[in-house]
């Protein structure tokens, strides 16, 4: 790997974890995901096709990983970026690359903890700007400083990992025998089963279970990839979930008369953009997204309380409190609080406690719905649509995913901003009580199960290499003549269900991965696998 390549790879890792438009923006859903970073790393390393293929396979391990409310068990972005880069530079095959990526994901979660810890140090800086009543300066503490910290924290280790790691990985592999490489590839073939099982943990329930097997069978016998499977089962899901037109009617407003808007449209939109981009730029253990919320509200505060220093300070103070939610769904809180500030600026007597209680009341439930909707179903669903195209080396697939995701995510967020701003808290509650979001989650669960089933058939590999001598000339090949004769992909299916059972019993995913590694080592050494 050249110096320039290592620099660019390290930059990609920073971008993946940063809030900039192509990076973590939108709930860490684009460059953060290995399928997308695989494309970028592929371009940097001069082998786009391989990059996309490796990225897609690494993404399968992490398809079911969720980071909710500040907990981050593994960092898929480091696994994706550095794993792909090292694999391409050392010319490792796709399956073996997965084995390399997993420990990187574990290391990456340290970066996350460091980020939240160090950002806590910035809270006093934010408090200083609040005391001075300077909303125009909040970007310094919400963007500039935390991003400098994040840059140092991501760029430096990734650069050294890429630059020196590639030589080390290459040298080690050169010395190792073919058996070792076979073991690596065997582990890599089995690992996607853990990722798939993890995602099953949140969607494999009730009637949706049967769709997992249907998806598996259709793919095993007809060889269909994830996109055709998804299209077929989208129709099935829509039929099953019985959507009605009324489900999508806008909830009624709890306000009798249309309030006079004194807040400029521009300020409201700016607030929403600040929120969608930078809600988690200064994520810290003390206030979580509090500084992000303050930054989001800054344009509103500037607009409403211009020339009123005391009101400005008070508004900044109440905006910077502890806050933590899912950001697209949380858009409605931005709208709601902006409307409350507007009324207060217009003379209404709204106490600070009212702001606190509406925010603390909403943030939990909205995160509950939002994390379930986006992290457990919609983001993985959008990836699943295109993942088998990507795994075959189609370089357009990651871009298609990003486009579909952005369109859905931003439309949803903007709609909720307007709902909160124009119709108020009662409308948000009505929307949640209507159950339409849970219907969407159920439908996506059906779709998800079917596509995961097809992934098992196509991308989990496990085969037995035992032959039993029948006569002097003929032998029974256990894999070909027995398992494949019943159903192709039977062993991968059993493996995935086995992983699912272990996870369901409460075993940690890394323990399950270690068991798989154990099986692969013993299996290959004893010539069973």
């Amino acid at each position, binding site marked *: 790997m050249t110096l320039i390549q290592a620099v660019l790879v390290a930059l990609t890792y920073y971008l993946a974890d940063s809030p900039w438009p192509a990076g973590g923006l939108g709930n860490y859903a684009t460059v953060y995901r290995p399928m997308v970073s695989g494309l970028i790393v592929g371009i940097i390393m001069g082998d786009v096709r391989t990059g996309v293929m490796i990225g897609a396979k690494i993404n399968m391990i992490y398809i079911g990983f969720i980071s*909710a*409310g*500040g*907990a981050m*068990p593994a960092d898929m972005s480091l696994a994706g970026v550095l794993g792909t880069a090292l694999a391409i530079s050392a010319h490792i095959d796709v399956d073996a690359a997965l084995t390399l990526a997993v420990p990187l994901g574990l290391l990456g979660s340290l970066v996350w903890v460091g980020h939240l810890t160090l950002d806590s140090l910035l809270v006093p800086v934010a408090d200083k700007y609040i005391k001075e009543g300077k909303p125009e300066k909040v970007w310094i503490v919400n963007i500039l400083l935390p991003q400098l910290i994040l840059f140092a924290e991501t760029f430096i280790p990734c650069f050294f990992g890429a630059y020196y790691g590639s030589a080390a990985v290459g040298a080690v592999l050169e010395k190792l025998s073919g058996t070792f490489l076979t073991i690596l590839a065997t582990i890599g073939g089995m690992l996607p089963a853990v990722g798939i099982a993890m995602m099953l943990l949140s969607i494999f329930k009730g009637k949706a279970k049967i769709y997992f097997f249907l998806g598996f069978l259709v793919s095993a016998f007809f060889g269909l990839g994830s996109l055709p499977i998804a299209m077929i089962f989208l129709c099935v899901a829509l039929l099953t979930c019985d959507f009605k037109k009324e489900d999508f009617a806008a909830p009624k407003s709890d306000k009798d008369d249309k309030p006079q808007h004194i807040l400029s449209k521009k300020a409201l939109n700016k607030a929403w953009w600040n929120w969608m981009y930078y809600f988690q730029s200064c994520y810290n*253990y003390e206030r979580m997204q509090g500084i992000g919320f303050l930054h989001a509200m800054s344009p509103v505060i500037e607009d409403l309380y211009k020339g009123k220093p005391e009101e400005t300070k008070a508004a900044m103070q109440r905006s910077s409190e502890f806050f933590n939610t899912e950001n697209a769904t949380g858009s409605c809180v931005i709208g709601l609080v902006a409307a409350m500030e507007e009324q207060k600026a217009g003379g209404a007597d709204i106490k600070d406690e009212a702001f606190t209680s509406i925010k603390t009341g909403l943030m*939990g439930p909205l995160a509950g719905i939002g994390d*379930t909707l986006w992290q457990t179903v919609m983001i993985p669903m959008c990836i699943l649509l295109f993942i088998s195209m990507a795994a075959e080396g189609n370089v357009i697939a990651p871009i298609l995913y990003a486009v579909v995701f952005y369109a859905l995510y931003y439309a949803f967020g903007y709609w909720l901003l307007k709902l909160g701003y124009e119709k108020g808290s009662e409308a948000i509650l009505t929307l949640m009580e209507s159950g339409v979001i849970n219907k969407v989650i159920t439908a996506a669960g059906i779709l998800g199960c079917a596509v995961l089933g097809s992934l098992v058939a196509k991308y989990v590999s496990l085969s037995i290499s035992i032959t039993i001598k029948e006569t002097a000339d003929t032998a029974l090949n256990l894999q070909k003549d027995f398992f494949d004769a019943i159903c192709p992909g039977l062993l991968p299916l059993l493996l995935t269900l086995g992983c699912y059972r272990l996870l369901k019993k409460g075993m940690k995913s890394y323990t399950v991965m270690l068991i798989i590694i154990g099986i692969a080592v013993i299996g290959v050494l004893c010539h069973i696998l």
Partner: protein
Amino acid sequence: MRCRSRGGIMNDGKEGGCMRKVVLARIDDRLIHGQIMTAWLQTTAATRIIIADDKVASDNFECRLLKATVPADVKVDVLKVDAAAAELLQPEAQGERIILLTKCPETMEALIEKGVTLPEIILGNMGIRQGRERFNRNVSASPEEIATMSRIIEAGSEIYYQMVPKEERVNIRKLVEKGR
């Protein structure tokens, strides 16, 4: 089996125990949110969530909001502390698995004092506010709250810090001693 704490019969964890089956008791001031919905509900296979909090139970908006968050197959009850204790001390119902949530350690202690047996309590999130200092990562606590946690531990429960089941849990005994 007689209960060690006063006022009730101990839940020995077997079928037909003398207290409701609590599969997770958690202190978390955001109550139901992403970590509960995407992780704990799955790993505990809970069928019911009981929230014990006097203030939330008398706020109709919040009650409705919390109930609307959870899918229909999980029952949510938001109860005042007395009512929650009374409910938890009912005999175990077949197949029922409960997640018990309180906003702060005080409520947990009140439940324990009323006879509810909770061998393990998970400390999830406590946000910073007036009077609280950083305690551990995303948990902030006031001196009184640390003292309460210490009393809970002395009374025979263990408290572990753990955001999601995938993370290693950390016994906070030492942190509480340090914080006092």
